[in-house]
């Protein structure tokens, strides 16, 4: 069982990272290694075991519904590489 070139290209697309052919090849090998790990993990009997989501065992952590002004608006907008007035700008869409 191993990962195909097409699958790797698809993953790179999902992850939104442009990769060269060499890189695609390199990651193909890496991902095949992961497949190997999974085969080993499959040998562990986890019948009736629930996946661990958090080690703390915490539940029902909430904040109260109170609004507050962060005062960070200008700083946040200023950090954007491209802006237009109070908007953050994206130069291209599709």
């Amino acid at each position, binding site marked *: 069982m191993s990962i195909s070139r097409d699958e790797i290209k698809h993953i790179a697309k999902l992850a939104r990272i442009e990769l060269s052919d060499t890189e695609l090849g390199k990651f193909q090998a890496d991902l095949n290694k992961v497949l190997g790990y999974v085969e080993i993990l499959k040998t562990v009997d986890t019948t009736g075991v629930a996946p661990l989501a958090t080690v703390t065992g915490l539940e029902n952590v909430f904040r109260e519904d109170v609004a*507050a002004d962060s005062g*960070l608006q200008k700083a946040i907008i200023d950090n954007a590489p491209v802006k237009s007035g109070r908007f953050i700008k994206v130069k291209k869409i599709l």
Partner: protein
Amino acid sequence: MNDLKYEPVIGLEIHVQLKTRSKMFCASANNPDEAAPNTNICEVCSGQPGSMPVANREAVKKSIMVGLALGCEIPEYSKFDRKNYFYPDLPKGYQISQYDQPLCGKGEVVLGGSKIRITRAHLEEDAGKLIHEGAGSLVDLNRAGVPLLEIVTEPDFRTPAEAKEFLQDLQNIVRYLGVSDADMEKGHLRCDANVSVRRAGEKVLPPYKVEIKNMNSFRAVEAGLDYEIKRQEEALKTGGELLNETRGWDEAKAVTVQQRIKEEAQDYRYFPEPDLPALHFEKGYIEELRRLLPELPAAKRTRFMYEFGLSKKDADVLIADKNLAGFFEQVVSEMQEWAEEEGRQDDIKKFAKLTNNWIVGDFQALLKTTNQDPQDTKITAENLAELIKMIDRGEVSGSAGKKILSVMFEKGGDPSNIAVDEGLGQVSDESEIAAVVEKIISENSSVVADYKSGKKQAIGFLVGKVMAETKGKANPQVVNKILQEKLG
């Protein structure tokens, strides 16, 4: 071309923007009317490095209330999941949503005669807004992070009208619950539909469904569904094949337009949100929330019809606006008290009908001039009830009552005081009126003669004269009665 009969199969996916003070995972203000872009933002909802979410307790509570109102099971455990995809209006590159353990499970709503099954309802955060400008887009994150309740129905609707009615009912339910303003035009209530058609009488679901988006009003939902059903029927009748696709409703052209057929289905790579501990609801908590549910529109409609004898049509008008219905009840409750004092319990349905007429008629017309809520005007429930009692007792005429109502609306005040101040008091005293009637009879012998010789409508002229003599203050019914007695 075949002439088989087809029936529509429609399911709805509705997003309700919850009316909380702050956003779902941070303290930024939740204000749908904020005009200045990127105002209600902070490090969390703008996805700054290192920021973390904390769940809004009130949003969870409101969501469960909606689920309870829709008859949904509320599972003991729930959690949040990350839905991963890239788009400029999604600051973290993932949306915190719920995947396989939603807050609300299966439910059911009765609509007219049919049952609409609810598949689930889950809580998630809204994305920001994109405004397209030239080749690019402007990003406004005011809306990013606002709590959204996504309600999914089974494909149980068989007509566009049913779908529209359900949406209107849902709008009313969430307004009654106080969890959302649910104004479609403002985007608090959004609806996408899944539409397919099958041969009439078939039980199996069709092998495809078309998603329709961008229907921004109840009218648009009905029109969009209507169009799409016809389009699909046409296609099938002329031998075409229908596939899964997404189409947008074009309001201007009144058609649905194909959006790009996605080459591959979106892979959201859902996994449990590690930054948010799971939710665990004890039975006691859910029962407590159930007790807190206010009377919902359907129940209120039934009660108005049976307790107050209103017609369904009248009841529908009142319950369509929670505040109007509430005001109606306040006034009726005043009337009920009075009826008991006077020993006139039998008249309560008459009073309810009177109240209904005044509220739905003149009162609502006044409300429209200032766009106020019934509870916010200068007319109190007590005063409106008093006005109705005054008319019932004959102290003022109906038309005088309208004038008093206007004055109360403008300046407030007690109706009996206003009647005195404006000189609108009606005279109903029989002896007083009799005196004037005598005078008019003596001054208009020819008309009297006409009446006595058979021209019954001549009495109108005489009533008019009495009214003019009393400057409009005489109770016309009493005038009529006395004239008839005297003329024989």
